[in-house]
């Protein structure tokens, strides 16, 4: 294989995992924009996505499509409950307290998952076979196409929602100014609930599409969350286009790092990028030069 082709191959596989990071990053951004907090349970949503899909599809033998939607609904419901329960009922609305609550939720979800799903790594069959397609001499797994396709559809749908529907505009309004949104009559609580629900759904999808490639276990949430978080920071925390760009870039950097240097450093790439961005341009690629008020 020529070096050029190899590079192309790395980039393709980077874009694949990067798509997943993008979805996770969008989840972080949605919640951040609505509430100003970092949701540390975002990675657990992703883990749950894989686990629920395995439960519905591999264990309960439900067909692929119903399993997919059941998983989205289940994890979305968990996102909703996280907001409707502990976050909403918190006595103090201090950002730090709310973030602590998400950390607590993350630990609880992980612990419960260990009990429910066991400690062994598990995987899912790819959505449609394992015969690679050849594109310009590079091999692409069908699963990668699924990952791309699903990510692109979700990004487009979310963009339509945020830009064209009244509820979507109201969500952006809450992100722009919570006070002003309240004075306009926008039910801010409901928008926050929606952002948690969406983030759960996005996490679920990310988990389901990546599991056939990477396998999963009860403890993958932290590292996946960190990747999505780094992607969000890289792109500009809170920015939707930023989340997509950050996710794809991080995926590609990681893949190049693993391919050209050593796969042992794969996870370190995310940390390295995170630190570099925080040192050099904390507002990220699409950032407006300020980290939003809290």
């Amino acid at each position, binding site marked *: 294989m020529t070096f050029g082709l190899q590079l192309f191959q790395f980039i393709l596989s980077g874009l694949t995992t990067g798509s997943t990071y993008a979805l996770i990053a969008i989840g972080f951004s949605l919640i951040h924009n609505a509430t100003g907090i970092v949701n540390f349970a975002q990675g657990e949503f992703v883990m749950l996505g894989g686990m629920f899909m395995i439960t519905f599809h591999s264990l309960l033998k439900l067909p692929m499509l119903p399993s997919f939607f059941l998983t989205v609904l289940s994890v979305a419901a968990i996102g909703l409950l996280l907001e409707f329960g502990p976050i909403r009922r918190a006595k103090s609305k201090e950002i730090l307290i709310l973030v602590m609550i998400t950390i607590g939720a993350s630990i609880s979800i992980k612990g419960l998952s260990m009990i429910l799903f066991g400690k062994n790594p598990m995987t899912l069959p790819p959505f449609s076979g394992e015969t690679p397609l050849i594109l310009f001499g590079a091999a692409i797994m069908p699963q990668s196409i699924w990952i791309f396709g699903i990510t692109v559809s979700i990004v487009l749908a979310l963009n339509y929602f945020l830009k064209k529907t*009244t509820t979507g*505009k*109201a969500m*952006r*309004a809450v*992100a*722009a*100014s919570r*006070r*002003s*949104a*309240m*004075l*306009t*009559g*926008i*039910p*801010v*609580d409901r928008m926050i609930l929606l952002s948690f629900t969406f983030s759960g759904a996005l996490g679920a999808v990310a988990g389901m599409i990546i599991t056939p490639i990477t396998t999963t276990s009860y403890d993958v949430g932290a590292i996946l969350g960190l990747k999505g978080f780094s992607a969000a920071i890289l792109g500009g925390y809170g920015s939707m286009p930023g989340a997509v760009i950050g996710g794809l870039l991080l995926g590609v950097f990681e893949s190049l790092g693993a391919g050209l240097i050593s796969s042992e450093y794969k996870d370190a790439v995310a940390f390295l990028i995170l630190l570099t961005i925080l040192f050099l341009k904390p507002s990220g690629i699409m950032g407006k030069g300020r980290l939003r008020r809290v």
Partner: protein
Amino acid sequence: MLKLKNIDAFFGKTQVLRHVTLHVEAGEIVSLIGANGSGKTTLLNVISGLHPSRNGSRVFLNVETRGMKPEKIVALGILQVPEAEKVFNPLTLLENLELGAYLRRPDRVKLAEEMEKVFQLFPILRERKDQPAGTLSGGERQMLALGKALMGQPKLLMLDEPSLGLAPTVVSEIFHIVRSLNDRGITILLVEQNAKEALRISHRTYVLDTGRIVLSGSGQELLNNDEVKRAFLGKDYRGKWER
């Protein structure tokens, strides 16, 4: 229309409103004046449900509004144009106006008609309808904020220092608009530092000093009242006395 009785409000342990009692009748322009930090903004936020009040009652059109969420209070017809963060900066003018009608969710045709009315009132906004609100000048932003509030079909419109930071010509335009809105039947509660203008256009005025209503009366009465000056320059005077 609006009756506040014995309202207390706090920031932590600091009391910023003390037994505030006031009323606004339908069709009036009532202004609220007072020095920096006297509690004007807090009072509006209490009425809007953004800031909790302790004790007392807040009745609007015979409905007790204490403990209501802000969106419920907006639904009753109380709209506030705040001093800061008046509009949604990243959203376009059209989006801002559309959200102004959020609670009523008019259909497309109705929405377009209502926006048209706002554009007739503020023609400058039409030219910029697809721009993000953040690109507007201060005066234009104030107009958009008013337009957005009008989209909510207010019964009581509360304006927090609408003239703040605007050029004199724009200020008189804004006051002119406030008056014309009142002529159309919208009741107005106006918070101003620009006391002269406020007294001139309002039917009645309350003077707030460190969280207390210290004076009230018609604009004319207050313009001729020495106490008004004292209440305004309260801080300076006190400063001298204490020295």
